[in-house]
């Protein structure tokens, strides 16, 4: 029994958290990093009371939990269908109840961030005698939970995902595909839930920041710090893009495209990827930034992802190290932004990205990504 738990833990659960590390860093910052230490409990109590206080807010939160469930379903079913994990179908020899139990275990582990917060919300609701809200929250999560476990179970049993009506058939894009946007098509095709959820969370976060943060004097830095969180939420996507490039775009190295062109294509790609956020922040104009300072935001939005992308060409890089280094860089940037170095900081980051790219692009080989979350 312990061996099954160990295998499921290593091939499904740990992989899930590695793959979504950027997303969880973003959530962690959002829930625990934006409030001063002393006000943390008050902040969360206020948040929970807001959830319990109005049906609209409660509905939004339930929808977000539903989306997270879809993210889990999408990941687990895709993973179960990977040829390398086909050995897991041997679990079908176990009694049905046991397989159900193991799938419950898997979902419990990937759904744990929600479960832990839900328990606190229900406890607060019961203490405040808001039994109806507690029941709604409990029932909604129970339905999500059972639905997810049932889908995993079916997927494992049939070794197919065709039965899932929720197989989210997004339209296939039939348009001209410029080379620099290949990663975007890949993300849309293969990681669409990751992309959509990242966008949803970052836009909600930016909306919240612009709507509720009222500076007492003009200062660009809070906006830049917010953008750091937006980039943090995209780091997993960046890693996925590098893995895709290594796996599927190797053929393009045989084509006569200059290193400069390749670099600016990468910059162009990240500009397009983060265009929704770049446009959305205009909602905060002129309270949070002026036209001149917008250039700082643009430079930051293209320089940081380009830098994170470029460091993945170095020979020591793998998934775990990447997340540690990204976290360290974001923390350092957090303090550098407080020093208000202006656009120079991001020009420097672009230059660093260029140096890494120039010297490592052609030197990189696939074997360096052996420990990546996708592999």
């Amino acid at each position, binding site marked *: 029994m312990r061996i099954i738990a160990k295998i499921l833990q290593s091939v499904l659960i740990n992989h899930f958290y590695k793959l979504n590390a950027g997303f969880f860093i973003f959530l962690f910052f959002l829930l625990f990093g934006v409030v001063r230490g002393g006000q943390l409990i008050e902040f969360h109590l206020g948040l929970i009371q807001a959830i319990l206080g109005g049906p609209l807010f409660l509905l939004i939160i339930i929808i977000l939990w539903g989306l997270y469930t879809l993210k889990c379903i999408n990941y687990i079913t895709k993973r179960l269908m990977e040829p390398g994990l086909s050995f897991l179908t041997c679990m079908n020899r176990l009694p049905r109840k046991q397989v159900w139990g193991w799938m419950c275990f898997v979902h419990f582990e990937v759904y744990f961030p929600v479960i832990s917060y839900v328990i606190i919300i229900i406890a607060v609701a019961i203490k405040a005698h808001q039994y109806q809200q507690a029941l709604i929250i409990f029932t909604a999560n129970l339905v999500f939970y059972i639905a997810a476990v049932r889908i995993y179970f079916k997927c494992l049993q049939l070794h197919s995902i065709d039965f899932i009506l929720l197989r989210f058939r997004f339209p*296939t*894009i039939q348009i*001209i*595909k410029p*080379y620099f946007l*290949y990663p975007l*098509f*890949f993300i849309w*095709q293969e990681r669409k839930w990751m992309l959509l959820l990242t966008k949803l969370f970052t836009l909600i976060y930016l909306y919240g920041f612009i709507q509720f943060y009222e500076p007492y004097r003009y200062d660009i830095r809070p906006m830049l710090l917010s953008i750091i969180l937006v980039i943090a939420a995209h780091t997993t996507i960046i890693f996925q893009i590098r893995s*895709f490039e290594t*796996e*599927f*775009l*190797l*053929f393009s*190295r*045989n*084509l*006569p*495209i*200059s*290193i400069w062109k390749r670099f600016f294509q990468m910059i162009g790609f990240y500009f397009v990827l983060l265009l929704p956020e770049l446009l959305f922040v205009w909602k905060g104009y002129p309270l949070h930034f002026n036209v001149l300072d917008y250039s700082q935001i643009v430079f930051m939005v293209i320089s940081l992802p380009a830098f994170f992308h470029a460091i993945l060409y170095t020979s020591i890089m793998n998934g775990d190290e990447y997340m540690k280094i990204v976290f360290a860089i974001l923390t350092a940037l957090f303090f550098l932004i407080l020093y208000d170095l202006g656009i120079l900081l991001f020009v420097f980051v672009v230059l660093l990205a260029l140096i890494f790219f120039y010297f490592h692009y*052609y*030197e*990189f*080989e696939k*074997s360096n990504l052996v420990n990546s979350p996708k592999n």
Partner: protein
Amino acid sequence: MLQFEQIEKYYGNHLALQISSLQLEKGLFWLKGENGSGKTTMMKMVAGLHPFKGDILLDGISIKNSRNDFLKLVNFAEAEPIYPSFLTAKDLVEFYCSTKKASIKESIQMLKDLHIFDAYQNSVGSYSSGMLKKLSIALALVGNPQWILLDEPLITIDVAAVALVCDWINKMHQELGISFIISSHQSFQNILPFTAVIEVQNHTATIQDK
């Protein structure tokens, strides 16, 4: 002339290939060797896919110093081609032709001759391995290369396509003066008039007479 100078290729600590000096005049070369001997590695180095120590020069143009000019003259088809599944043959043909300054019309004609043009607008994810192989060969023949490297070009494709590809290789070599390095475990010396055989063994490559 294709020159290999002080080539060393390691995978981790494992020496895969070491060529202190090798010169290939224009011609049709059959690249032979056991599985894992380094044939694909050698081709991928020339095609710019693998980093290595040393240098490779084509008529004096170094892959290290003038990569773009070098790659304009070298085309490559992998043994097991991998393309993003969402791309169509049309996307790939247009991309290759724009970078290699080649004629799309000619590429389309090749796909028609190989009987895969019906799937021109389909994503390559829906292609069989034979269709994918045919597409990769057609892409390796576009533009104005001086050298074309084909890694196991005859596996997975049907008999008619084998004859057609060999015919193209012959014509391109004789009429346009394009040189080929073709790796294969199958003997097809009777079909193609090879200039010489390149034998890869004991982590190095040597030219042998036919």
